[in-house]
């Protein structure tokens, strides 16, 4: 394994980091995995039931939702068993909520690394999104059990699920990376993020269906990129028996792309000063 030294000639110069950046991101690719693994394995250390928490948490939340919305509020669920109706929406929402807040705080949480070691900083928030992805997979398995319990079999629509997951992933990534970089300089966002997450739960169709939003506000409603993700999840899991239209996917796609671009560009622009201000 000899690599010629020619490969390692480089120049440090103000504003010239760009050229190596994406190359370095590739070189440090294992760090994505390692950081995510660290966060996951640390989370359940010194707990009695350990990894069981990963299963217990989404299960309990789902049960509360079922009781509150189905039994007490009696919201319509478009012919799908209500637990599945809610759980299908909660999957992407929980994923968004947890990874968005983790990603936003990730840089500050790793300030000791940032001020002492070089690596592309983008790895930190992205790795924290991956952590939530693992939670997502666990919850998804619970959903499969739930569907089996209700004898609710998926159709071919389920194949489209990764697409909506991808949309949700990039929505989170864009928002998380954007806020993470702002958070380094302006710690206000530490307080803003929980607020966004809390508010987001009510303005996203998690406990209810998008159809109850009045027609004239629908377009405005679609600006929330998670609307299409959640509706998409429902649609894919329920086998097309819930509503999903192409407008919302389109709007969401545009919003997510913008979010990612703005997030990453802003991150790259402020990244070089992280070590100085954190």
């Amino acid at each position, binding site marked *: 394994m000899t690599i010629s*030294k020619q490969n*390692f*000639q*480089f*120049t*440090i*110069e*103000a*504003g010239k*980091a760009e050229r190596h950046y994406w190359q370095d991101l590739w*070189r*440090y690719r*294992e*760090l994505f995995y*390692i950081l995510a693994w*660290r966060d996951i*394995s*640390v989370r359940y*250390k*010194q707990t009695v039931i350990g990894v069981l928490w990963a299963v217990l948490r989404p299960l309990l939340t789902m049960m509360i939702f079922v009781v509150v919305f189905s039994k007490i509020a009696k919201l319509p669920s478009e012919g799908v068993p209500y637990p599945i109706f809610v759980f299908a929406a909660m999957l992407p929402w929980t994923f968004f909520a947890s990874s968005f807040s983790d990603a936003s705080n990730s840089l500050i949480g790793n300030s*000791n*690394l*940032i*001020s*002492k*070691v*070089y*690596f592309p900083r983008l790895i930190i928030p992205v790795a924290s999104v991956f952590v939530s992805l693992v939670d997502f997979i666990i919850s998804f398995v619970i959903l499969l059990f739930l569907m089996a319990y209700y004898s609710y079999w998926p159709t071919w629509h389920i194949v489209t699920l990764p697409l909506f997951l991808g949309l949700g992933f990039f929505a989170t990534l864009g928002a998380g990376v954007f806020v993470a970089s*702002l958070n380094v*300089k*302006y*710690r*206000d*966002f530490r307080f803003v993020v929980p607020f966004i997450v809390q508010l987001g739960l009510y303005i996203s169709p998690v406990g209810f269906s998008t159809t109850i939003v009045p027609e004239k506000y629908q377009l405005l409603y679609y600006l929330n990129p998670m609307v299409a993700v959640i509706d998409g999840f429902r649609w894919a899991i329920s086998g097309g028996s819930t509503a999903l239209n192409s407008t919302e996917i389109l709007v969401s796609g545009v919003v997510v792309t913008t979010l990612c671009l703005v997030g990453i560009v802003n991150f790259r622009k402020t990244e*070089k*000063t992280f*070590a*100085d*201000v954190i």
Partner: protein
Amino acid sequence: MTVAIKVENLSKKYIISHEKKTASYETFSDSLIQTGKNIGNRILHPFQRSENDPQKEEFWALKDINFEINQGDKVGIIGRNGAGKSTLLKILSRITEPTSGKIHINGRIASLLEVGTGFHPELTGRENIYLNGAILGMTRKEIKLKFDEIVAFSEVEKFLDTPVKRYSSGMYVRLAFAVAAHLESEILVVDEVLAVGDAEFQKKCMGKMDELGGEGKTVVFVSHKMSAIRNLCNRVVVVNKGKVVNSSPTDEAIDFYLSQCVKLSKGYVDLSDKKVARQGKRKLLVSLGLLEAGSEKYRRLVKTGEVLDIEVKFNVLESLVDYCFIAFCDLSGERVFSTGTHFDKTFCQKLQGMGRLICRIDEFPLVDGEYTLDIALGTKTNGNLDYVSNALSFRVELNDYFNTGEVVLPGQGSLAVKSSWSMK
């Protein structure tokens, strides 16, 4: 000989803001308000050039630095605290960007600015080796390959599966250095990390670094320990106030540095100057000087065992000051001893107005070497109001302190203390 590192006109500017009372970071709302104010000012006074914000001040941590390091060189970087060494290392290791200038680097660079960066206390030793390795830029394959070597070097085999939070600090440091020492790189940049750990381990680390140097690796090493620099380095770069003031073979450079430390000092320092970096909120200290006992003459050379008068001039306008505190530090920045009015209570008045305070030390206890003074004025409730570290440097010569012709040898400690021995 090929050049490993070439630094050209390198500068780094920091903006330091004053009078930020509560938080060290800005808040978004502050920023919005400031922007609003600026826009308002623009509209009200369209022809006035926007003045520099008085709360913000530019600070050049490095200014137009130039030097070259050849492949295989072991280079020490020395300088006083705040001279710009750490900034230089941070730029070299790409943690922060320079404001202007260039560095050409030929080879992979591994930097160790801190021992155990990224170690997670909850994870086991084994897990931390992988984590730390990855953070420092090793691949899992590389780590696996060197795992046994790392463990052997660290001497913590028995505790590999124990969370590192249960490690003793010595074990922790050993493991951390072991990982870093096995990095694959052509250039190794090391900050003062060897200050931690026991003497035996330090020796081992120095040995390892020497070995790496022997393999033709380039080593850049920052330390306050002149002995370590002498042992390891063949060349030394002296940094002072953001500039390279000397770059020559080790002994020559160290001599230059030590003589400069003292030459710069006249035994007196004006602290009312704007440029003095103070850590307190107020400007109360006017000057600090070392006086010949009983006279008004300043001096920069003190002999062990002599009477030393330290003169502190102050100007306390509004509030009262409860205490005056002076600490004596060696060249590594380590405090050797300190004294204060609140310790011995020989002077219990509060300080107010303009005045001059003399602190007399009857038998000055420090041995040969260069030392610096930290000085602070403060109140019991608010702590230090004005504080200047490294305010004044001076040289101490060990006279015939014991009146026997015997001296305290280097490495026998930094204090000369008289004692009497008897057989009982």
